[in-house]
């Protein structure tokens, strides 16, 4: 439609099914890796590794399945800002909890 402008693009990107199948296959492989990784003892690194693989999977889902790769900058900002605020929440709480001299009682 000719009435589109830069704020509201009239050409909408359609993802080819092939791309979805490829991403899906990678996600399955990463899932197998996550499960397989618990058989190896990396010590305290195990949790970090599991979270790292999960983050890669999440990034693939967000970028391709949720189509963020082709989203407008505003929509990207709107969505990714949530992770920034979550990060702030975690860091500020951590600064409090882990600099306490006494163990918190629950």
């Amino acid at each position, binding site marked *: 439609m000719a*009435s589109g402008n830069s704020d509201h693009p009239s050409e909408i990107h*359609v993802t080819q*099914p092939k791309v979805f199948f490829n991403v899906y296959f990678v996600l399955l492989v990463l899932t197998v890796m996550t499960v397989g990784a618990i058989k190896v003892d990396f010590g305290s690194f195990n949790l970090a590794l599991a979270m790292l693989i999960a983050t890669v999977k999440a990034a693939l889902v967000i970028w391709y399945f949720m189509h963020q790769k082709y989203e407008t900058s505003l929509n990207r900002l709107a969505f990714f800002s949530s992770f920034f605020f979550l990060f702030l929440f975690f860091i500020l709480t951590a600064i409090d909890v882990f600099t306490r001299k006494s163990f*918190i009682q629950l």
Partner: protein
Amino acid sequence: MSTSVPADTAHDHAHHFESREHQYSAAKLGIWLFMLTEIVMFGGLFVGYAFLRSLYPEIFFDGHKYLDVTMGATNTIVLLTSSLTMALSISYIQTGQNKKAALNLWLTFACAFVFLIIKYFEYSHKIHDGLLPGHFFTHAGDHPEKIGMFFGIYFMMTGLHGVHVTAGIVLISWLLIKLYKGHFNPKYFTPVEGVGIFWHIVDLVWIFLFPMFYLIH
């Protein structure tokens, strides 16, 4: 909102928008802002998990033994598959292949159901064995003090997630009804995208829940 492909650009959008593209942009921003709220809501629980796990690692190490990795992994595959079929259905509507779109929406619906069925078996088994939150915990055995906390966190997080899966099932059903009524076409598919993005968030949350609860080393 259009129910068919209108011939003129004056009637392909609601009157308070300038154009179809403007209406679509506004809808997409709204959808992404909603996802922001979902991320911070689940995120709050994730942050809680992080602190409780670092302060009470023994209850996580004990509690996770009662979770079935096979069922958790199966549910992970089920949700990943449902994400694939959901994304495919959007692409098929965008290219006018409504039959394939409907098939994939049905597959997404079926996967969501399978997920809940597996969760039902998991939950009922725990309830039967007394593996319950807080002071409801009655499972006999050598458990650390406050073991009920693990199951409180487990049921809260997977339960909230399960509520979202159920909401997704309702939304996908709504999409199927609209699809069969002919509401969607390559020029109008916003609700399908909206539900699709929501569904991927549901999948995303589980991608983290699975290693956090089932794969504790």
